[in-house]
């Protein structure tokens, strides 16, 4: 019986669907790392050493490793927000501006907490940021749903507008009197997220992030809304034919994405900052777009991508103190190559075709 089953079972082959995807991913990672090694060879006196420490540094101490998790949290939120857009074929890059403005609105409640009870104030802050993010994202959603406006350009223009308005609010209403600079007053101690790993900066934020990953996964794959969202992405007319209001769907996607981005902003600020002090756009929203692409618009994929990229970024940031050439910004090489190769449908396809022909010929 078992022998029969073994015979019937198809021989393992790298050209099968799942192994091939894994092989593609693995090759993409190897290529990306190889090219960054080559770049290091040009600029570093000791490229091998630098490269090895870049790949292993976070494992040197628990604190270093915790830093990876700290950096990963906002990327997970931004990735989740963006992948919902991308899933519906909406190239909305507004997560960046939403991160900024919802953080500004949250700061009002973080500086002067309403109740003084830690956990409730934290929930209020995160809810305010989520609501602000969701409501603001309704604007591009409405323009797209009503008049089919170009959501990418609009969201990019909105990033600049939201940043200007946000900075103005910070300078006018949040900045302590008589102090120069662009920072708010300090957040109340009670609203700052609880540390869950002693000796590190890892807060309850990581739990919230992972819960959101699970929720988005359920939303996408286990609910009617998620099904409609995925179908709209692959066929624009689907929503109309399925009887679902395309208008409502569009607004809902934007509200949910904006709310996730707003939550991410609140969790990042309450976890790692003592006051609102972003004087430029933080760049987290844009990185979220990369996470979505690397994770193939899958919440779990995006989380893994966020971990991998945060690992390298944290490592680079820790090494930047001692090395003249390594810096967080260097990781952009790995990011761009991975993103390009992963989003290329034909990457390694000709190799696969050749292998398949060979196998057929052998039979």
């Amino acid at each position: 019986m078992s022998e029969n089953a073994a015979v019937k079972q198809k021989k393992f082959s790298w050209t099968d669907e799942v192994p091939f995807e894994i092989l593609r991913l693995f090759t993409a990672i190897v290529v990306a790392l190889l090219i960054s090694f080559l770049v290091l060879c040009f600029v570093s006196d000791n490229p091998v050493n630098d490269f090895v420490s870049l790949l292993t540094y976070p494992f040197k101490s628990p604190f270093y490793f915790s830093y990876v998790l700290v950096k990963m949290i906002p990327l997970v939120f931004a990735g989740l927000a963006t992948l919902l857009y991308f899933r519906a074929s909406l190239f909305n890059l507004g997560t960046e501006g939403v991160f900024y403005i919802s953080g500004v609105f949250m700061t009002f409640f973080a500086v002067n907490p309403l109740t003084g009870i830690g956990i409730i104030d934290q929930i209020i802050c995160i809810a305010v940021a989520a609501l602000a993010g969701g409501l603001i994202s309704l604007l591009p959603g409405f323009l797209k749903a009503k008049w089919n406006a170009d959501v990418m350009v609009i969201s990019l223009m909105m990033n600049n507008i939201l940043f200007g308005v946000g900075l103005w609010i910070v300078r006018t209403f949040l900045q302590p009197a008589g102090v120069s600079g662009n920072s708010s007053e300090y957040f109340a101690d009670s609203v700052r997220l609880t540390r869950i790993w002693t000796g590190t900066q890892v807060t309850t934020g990581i739990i919230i992030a992972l819960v959101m990953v699970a929720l988005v996964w359920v939303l996408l794959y286990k609910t009617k809304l998620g099904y409609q969202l995925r179908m709209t992405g692959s066929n624009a007319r689907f929503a109309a034919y399925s009887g679902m209001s395309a208008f409502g769907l569009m607004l809902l996607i934007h509200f949910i994405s904006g709310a996730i981005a707003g939550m991410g902003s609140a969790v990042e600020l309450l976890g790692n900052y003592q006051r609102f002090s972003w004087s430029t756009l933080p760049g987290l929203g844009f990185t979220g777009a990369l996470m979505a692409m690397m994770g193939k618009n899958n919440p779990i994929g995006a989380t893994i991508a966020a971990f991998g990229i945060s690992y390298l970024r944290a490592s680079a940031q820790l090494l930047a103190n001692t090395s003249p050439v390594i810096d967080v910004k260097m990781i952009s090489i790995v990011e761009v190559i991975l993103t390009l190769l992963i989003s290329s449908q034909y990457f390694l396809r000709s190799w696969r075709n050749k292998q398949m022909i060979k196998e057929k010929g052998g039979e």
Partner: protein
Amino acid sequence: MDGILGSIFSIDFLVVVIRVGVPLVFASLAAYVASLVGLSNIAIEGIMIMSALSGVLISAFTGSAWIGFFGAAAIGIFMALVIVFFSMRLKADPIMIGIALNLFATDFSVWLMLITTGTKGMTGSLPSKVLPTVHIPFIEDIPILGQLISGHYLLTYVCVAIAIIIWIVVYKTPFGLRMKACGLDATAAESVGIKVNKVRLIALILSGFLAACGGAYLSMGYLSFYSDNMTAGRGWIGIAAAAVGGGNLGIVLLTTVGFAIAQAIVNMLILTSLPTDLVNTIPYICVLIGLVALSIREYHARRGKVK
């Protein structure tokens, strides 16, 4: 406020509009050419960043402004070729490629600055060169006209020349017709013997070159160094202008000029007591309104057709 109104209706203001407008026109031409052939170049902002920086670096290391400029152009064309290669050969979504390239340029440029100058802010310490300013003999002596037409950076004249050439090519030559055909319906174009991939390749090389000119103008003319975030969204404004204009080059250029005027007014308003942060958002609000107006117009045009 009177002072501002007075200065808006002056020659100096027009000169400022030209200075502010040139990189924007380069960006919107780059976006226009690419979208005309149906292969969007979303990476214009990133190309501008990389070529602005590489122009400065290469000119500083070689001591020649021209080698710097051609280096910048080569970088721009290379990045456009990345879009072509990944979208045509590896079947990646050009929008995704563009987004990835923009994000790459934003970060990578900072790292390049760090390893070449040791700082992340700007390249002021490098002895980079600037492209020449052109003084047209005789015309520069005419009172008002001379100020308007003469004494600009070389790339300003290049910009005007290229805009005219593109207009002629698109509207007056068979190749322009082929470009439009590729953008309207690639399959139909292919079926009548147009080599769609070749047309797109040429258009994208031009698009990359134009974006690179816009970047080089900023760091080798407008200013004489590269500073972080120097492009300040100009590439995106080019894309917005191309979207507003659709396939019509005239409207694309008009939108761009309108934006340049808004930007020039903002440059003046910043000097007043109005809140700087809010004033800075005015140009973007203008683009946003323009885009929405366009979408509403197209929406009604579509509805009209259906009826």
